[in-house]
């Protein structure tokens, strides 16, 4: 590593720029409670004026709903987001029954019932918050494995053997992955989780959000991606865990930003708006954003579709060669959407020299996209992954390229299902934002941007997300996910996640399952 005091334009370091000292981030689960005053849970517990503050409920509740700190004469407002609801009535510590003054009442929280949608159900949002807070899957009640969209991942289940064929300890199970299979002399980049963060530009999200993602990626020895909005200087201490995205608008793409990272991603299309290009509304193009993108503040910025320099696979190869020449140590990822001929696109990218083929399915996230595109254009990732996987296998090149799936990966179980369908690994975006407190209200694009301070560049709103808190929430989420990866692999008796790839025999589909399995589900 070269000293940081050297001038930035000195072409030392094998012709590359001097590197900023890299800053490690500790991979440790610590509680990261909801940042709002009133966290949301499935149930509401109300305390009426009949309460005599006897403190019995405080003694009874093992979940910490009731609290009466030392020196307080009154019991605090119930922390009802921790309540497990009517299931507690089976126990001997059900506060509602036991309260001598009948001052407590329990009801479903209407807010929890009002949020969510079939893809990200209320349960998935609440359980993702729980995992981000605690680092573990929710213990009971909340459905944290799948949504209610009625298709795709939500209809797939694991076909667990009754007993694992091989008894494995959790510590023996490897969830890591190598991202270079080409033997082309470039580094064999290893990640510790089969998950990395998708591209979200500076402009679409705040610098705090970007930093939290980059730092969590550093902690988990995986990656986060700049998106198409330039490479903010504050990310430089995490260069080894950043991916520079080169997209059609080429905003903020400079030789130096390509040279400082280990992976460069070409974004040909985005699943949520395939074939349409990107659009940052003028309101979000603040002076900081404009400077980073070398644009004029306040103007709407368009990323056109497609790359107008690429009209063939040969042009595509030229594109990849350009990056490979600029950074001789970088791996190149190609992010494409999922048209009907996605298998041919993948093979073309392989022959053009891509190390990573990243498929972004049509139900993926976005900062702004026409609703008609999100719903209708291109196929969901659940269909694209097996299609491409089988085709690459048939072409005999499957083991020379890493196939990554994104666009609608919400849970740890979605990750595993995508891998069983044929992906090596996945990219997530929305799940990270939900961990940071996103409620999926869909207003990222309007006015000052995200009311919850995540997808905004508004100097006031963005302060809602503290960098350390956000980092911890994401570290916790990935810790909870890893626990689930390990648990599922252990039940299948597989020592490595790499073995799980393409194992469709480990899955069944609720619509086509044999009777016994459907009943068990």
């Amino acid at each position, binding site marked *: 590593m070269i000293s940081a005091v050297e001038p930035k334009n000195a072409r030392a370091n094998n012709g590359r720029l001097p590197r900023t000292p890299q800053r490690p981030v500790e991979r440790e689960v610590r509680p990261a409670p909801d940042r709002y005053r009133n966290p949301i849970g499935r149930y509401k517990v109300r305390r009426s004026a009949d309460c005599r503050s006897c403190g019995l409920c405080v003694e009874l509740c093992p979940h910490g709903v009731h609290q009466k700190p030392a020196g307080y004469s009154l019991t605090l407002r119930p922390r009802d987001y921790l309540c497990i609801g009517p299931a507690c009535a089976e126990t001997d510590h059900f506060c509602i029954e036991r309260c001598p003054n009948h001052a407590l009442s329990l009801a479903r929280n209407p807010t929890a019932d*009002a949020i969510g949608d079939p893809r990200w159900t209320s349960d998935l949002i609440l359980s993702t918050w729980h995992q981000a807070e605690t680092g573990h899957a929710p213990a009971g009640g909340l459905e944290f494995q799948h949504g209610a969209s009625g298709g795709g991942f939500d209809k797939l289940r694991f076909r667990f053997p009754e007993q694992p064929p091989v008894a494995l300890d959790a510590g023996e199970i490897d969830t890591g992955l190598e991202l270079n299979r080409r033997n082309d002399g470039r580094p064999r980049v290893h990640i510790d989780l089969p998950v990395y963060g998708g591209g979200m530009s500076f402009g679409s999200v705040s610098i705090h959000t970007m930093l939290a993602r980059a730092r969590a990626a550093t902690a988990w020895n995986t990656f986060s991606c700049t998106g198409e909005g330039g490479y903010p200087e504050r990310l430089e201490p995490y260069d080894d865990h950043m991916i520079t995205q080169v997209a059609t608008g080429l905003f903020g793409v400079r030789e130096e930003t390509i040279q400082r990272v280990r992976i460069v991603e070409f974004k040909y299309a985005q699943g949520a708006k395939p074939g349409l290009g990107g659009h940052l509304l003028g309101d979000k193009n603040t002076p900081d954003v404009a400077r980073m993108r070398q644009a004029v503040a306040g103007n709407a910025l368009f990323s056109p579709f497609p790359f107008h320099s690429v009209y063939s696979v040969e042009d595509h190869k030229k594109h990849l060669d350009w990056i490979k020449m600029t950074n001789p140590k970088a791996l190149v990822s190609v992010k494409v959407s999922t048209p009907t001929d996605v298998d041919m696109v993948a093979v073309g990218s392989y022959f053009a020299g891509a190390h990573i083929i990243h498929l972004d399915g049509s139900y993926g996230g976005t900062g702004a996209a026409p609703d008609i595109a999100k719903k209708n254009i291109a196929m969901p990732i659940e269909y694209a992954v097996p299609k491409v996987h089988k085709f690459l296998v048939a072409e005999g090149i499957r083991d020379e390229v890493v196939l990554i799936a994104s666009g609608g990966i919400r849970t740890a179980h979605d990750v595993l299902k995508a891998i069983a369908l044929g992906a090596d690994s996945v990219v997530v975006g929305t799940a990270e934002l939900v961990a940071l407190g996103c409620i999926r*209200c*869909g207003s990222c694009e309007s006015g*000052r941007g995200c009311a919850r301070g995540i997808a905004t560049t508004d100097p006031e709103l963005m302060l809602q997300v503290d960098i350390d808190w956000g980092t911890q929430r994401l570290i916790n989420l990935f810790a909870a996910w890893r626990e689930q990866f390990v648990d599922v692999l252990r039940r299948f008796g597989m020592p490595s996640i790499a073995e799980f790839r393409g194992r469709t025999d480990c899955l069944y589909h609720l619509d086509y399952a044999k009777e016994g399995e459907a009943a068990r589900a």
Partner: protein
Amino acid sequence: MPKRYHVPIVPAPARFRPVGKYGTVDWREDCSRCKNCVKLQCVYDVYRSEYAYNSDPSLPVEPPFDCRACLSCIQGCTKGLLSLSVNPEYLALGDDYWHPDMIAATWDQAETGRIPVSGAGYRGPFSGPGFDSIWTDMSEIVRPTRDGIHGREYINTSVDIGPKPTHLVFGPDGELGTARPILEVPVPVILDIPPWAPPSEAILSARIAAAAALGTLTVVRPSDAAAATPDQISSLAPLFEEPEFTQHESMLRGVRMVEIADGANTLSHSEQLHAINPDLVVCARVRLEPAATERVWSLYQGGIKVIHLCADTQGREIGAERPRFVKDVLREIHVRLIQEGVRDEVTLIASGGIALPEHVAKAIICGADLVAVGVPLMVALGCRVCPGDHNGSCPADIQSIDASYATQRMVNLMGAWHSQLIEVLGAMGIREVRRLRGEVGRAMFQEDLEREAFGDLGG
């Protein structure tokens, strides 16, 4: 640069307070008056605008209609008094086919004429019956075999209606024969008679004026043709249930297309119409019954080259025991005409169940040349698609609507649809909506995708 097609969009705000999706519920008796009220910090200033509305003592207190459910107030309230709820009135909008979100999105487009855009990913079910089991394609790298994108302003949405000759015809002396004229409409949508509408002259006039402004056609009953001004006559496509042609001769000389309800005498009626106006495009309006494919073929053989296929309002076959969806019947008819080698001579107009802009593209992919819409025009005016017979009192008071306002709402909606059709065509790398017809290669059907992806997951 050639003149571009332009839809004259002018914002037309809702006449009444729209039905909002979310509301907040609070228990004011516990409020501590902390002066720190999160309602005042609402990023969208919803509470302040609500206050202006709700402070009028003559009006009932109503929930915020533009609340975006960001939960900032709910999670920030000092005493945790607020809860979010979904407005039951919102959930009650529509019927089995028209869901509340579709109605709200249509209102919005009729107001602004803009493409609905939002953040975050798709939030609906994975797939659904009918058009929701089709995904349209996109072109990853624009290749020479595809049209390429040369700017959206160059994407052509015009279609032809009429008998299209496949070759030149010469007379006995070698002179060039004359073919019947075809007519071109700049959008692949014509405005149909809505299946329900209150008796209002204004709505009829608005529909005619909207068709004229859009450059397309509108189907009207012959007796209603009088509502058109002389310069709007050419935008009419009168629908004759009975052969009352002689009573309407002067109107028939001014219109370009006529629809006749299909029956035993369709062919002779067509001849009578051509006797009055040889340049008329005569369209048979056929109910989409199980025998529709055969009927289309026999109409073709009898010389009828323009056929309007009408499914029910939810896009289902009529009179079938297990009705198929319009997309499946369209594919069958389209393929039959290809097999007979006559597809290019025929114009198919599809209607019934066309509720969203993607339905236009998907119906065309399945084999229609263009579509006709009725219900969306009513929704543009504020209709809530109440279930039942629509004979009760209208909650949107549509009968009192002003004609020029109604015209603008319809024009705005079609303008938004036109823009969205261009988005879909642009993503496909297709430059001409005529080339989309029957292009099932530019669509993905769920049954095929499921078989390919999950076919081996059964046993």
